């Protein structure tokens, strides 16, 4: 049950996955790979939320029984919307530069 896997392991996993996503955003050149890395980051935060909900004691009165889970659901929805918008933008940029390489998008300077 809840005492099988220590909470810390979930948190370390989420932190590691978040760092992987962050490094991915900074290092990857393909715009869609950057988008995937952002998704990894958002899902790491989701793992965090659900883990805290699962291992936390009594939820406060008036809060309902599932605050962490509901928040994670909302985050998934928002992440989906964000990806839809992001793909649209990448398409726009691709049509102008004929490349999905973020290093090439540098028409403005200063």
């Amino acid at each position: 049950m809840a005492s099988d896997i220590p909470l810390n392991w979930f948190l370390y996993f989420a932190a590691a996955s978040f760092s992987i996503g962050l490094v991915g955003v900074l290092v990857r050149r393909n715009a869609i790979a950057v988008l995937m890395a952002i998704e990894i980051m958002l899902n790491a935060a989701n793992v965090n939320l659900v883990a805290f909900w699962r291992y936390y004691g009594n939820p406060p009165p008036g809060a309902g029984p599932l605050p962490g889970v509901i928040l994670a659901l909302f985050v998934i929805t928002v992440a989906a919307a964000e990806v839809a918008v992001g793909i649209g933008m990448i398409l726009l940029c691709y049509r102008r530069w004929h490349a999905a390489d973020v290093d090439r998008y540098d028409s403005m300077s200063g």
Partner: protein
Amino acid sequence: MDPNLSNVDFRDFWHLAPAIVLSVWGLVVLLADLALAGRMSAPARRRAIGWLTLAGVALALLAAAGLMQVQQLAQAETQGTPGWLSPSLAEYFSRPGGSIFLGTLSADLQTGVLNVLFILMLGLVVWLSMAWSFTEDWGEYFALVTWATVGMMLLAASEELVTLFLTLETMTICLYLTTAFEKTRRRSAEGGLKYFVYGSVSSALFLFGLSLLYGLTGTTQFEAIRTALASTGGAGTGLSGNVAGATALLLMLVGFGFKIAAVPFHQWAPDAYEGAPAPVTALIATGSKLASFVALMKVFLHALQPWSHPSNELLGPGWLGVIAIVSAVTMTYGNFAALAQRNFKRMLAYSSIANAGYMLVGVAAASVSTRGAEAAGSVLFYLVVYAFANIGAFAVAAWLVRDKKTDDIDDLNGLGMQSPLLAVCILVLMLSLIGIPPFAGFFGKLYMFMEALNQQRAETRLTLMGLVALGLMNSVVSAFYYVRVLKAMFFREPGGSRRLGLAGRSIEIPIAIGALVAIFFGIFPGPLISVMQAAAVPMLTTSSGGFAATVSAPSGTGYAPLLPAKTAAPASPKSARPEPEQAKRYEARMKEAQAKASASASASPGAQPKNAPAAQPKNAPAKKAEAQEKDQ
């Protein structure tokens, strides 16, 4: 029915009236565009749908103003109610402000004032958008801009982390899309993509910090977080040695720092501001910044207040030191980078970054001052004045792009001779942004820096004085790049192949309104500053009093910060529903914790103001206790 949950009071929806009007109107605008698409050309559709959107904005303004009026009427009646209000509504509105929808949104003077402001800004931006055709998809554009404003209104009202995140994303995603709307220019798509990538990464960082904060306190409501952090033991150990807490705080600062364009999270601002069509930039620079600052003040000055400066060291464990450093770097970088800019919108972007730095000084002051609400109110005043001046400035940029296809500062050459009246208005705007009396910008800076100097904790005095000195020096530096605009207008001959045409009503009105606001609030700053200071009180102290029956509070044992040897307390979520007797004990303990927190908070100097408006929140727990007795 689950005894743990309180019922939603459906009369709370009345407070959402402006947001509902605008959301529905966005759909109306979309449908209208669909209906007109085959029958009208794009410029004609631009005007038709623009006026339709303005009609919706007027309706929303009526709703917001009407709501404030009804509240005022109902609360002022000592006996009897206004005849046209049903008795239950009259009783509902006569309660003092507080949180609605089970404590997720607030509904008080602050939200009323900010709603009106956001709707006014939306109206000006929509009017400005009708100036020229930068896109063909007018229905989508006006709908997105409207929905972004809905996100802003709800963001300024949110009292809880979930609502904060959702409304932040609503506003930001709509703004990402509208930034990329100018399909004929490559820079628009590039600005949009850069805004999007930076924004999504900072949202993810913010969300991670949010999840850690939820884990540390067990709740997402600002008031309950504050109680948890102020209590002793568990989550209330302060920031010293609390790695998880410090991480959560820094990550949330990253998220907010991106939204307000503070250094080093500012990289998106110049490109996004330059790439976006000028009306969209106006909305990003004014509405989005105002909403984000209000949210930042709510989170940092209300929820995370116990972590602001608990020790006696100069930059002790607490976020005051971090905000001070960020503020100093932001001011300096923004101003010096703006000196080198030749593009007008890019210069305004860097000026926007610098202004965020000034406002962070106000936030830092509000955290330690004994007059916290006054300091926060001065930040709000500065934001309002800055917002209207900026809308005027971006209207000038729109004019330049419309007629000359580029928006360099040199394109303003000779404007003084061509349209002297408008040039004088632009002069007023620039002087207000520099902070020269008697314009409103001067009073904004005066109030903010005065509040920063006007506090009584000796150990933070050095930090705040240093910040104020840096702010004043930076204001001098900023004069150089604003005056460059004036030099181009009045002392240069017009050049270039294209000439600036007549401005037309859509551009004249925002510039004129910006100048009028700068002049009027420069001569009479008093009323606005007192309104803003009154509005800041509920912003910083909203408890659940008034509308909601209960606010969620953490249970007795807060979650301990991460330590390798400890494992978490064994969880039994199945038994998480306390029986009614236990619920009574919970509430008794929660009331006790809140009373202790407010007593200890008022004893320490860095706390809420003790003057008359503060009596209202103290009444609120009493009224809440009454409501609970009635419920049980």
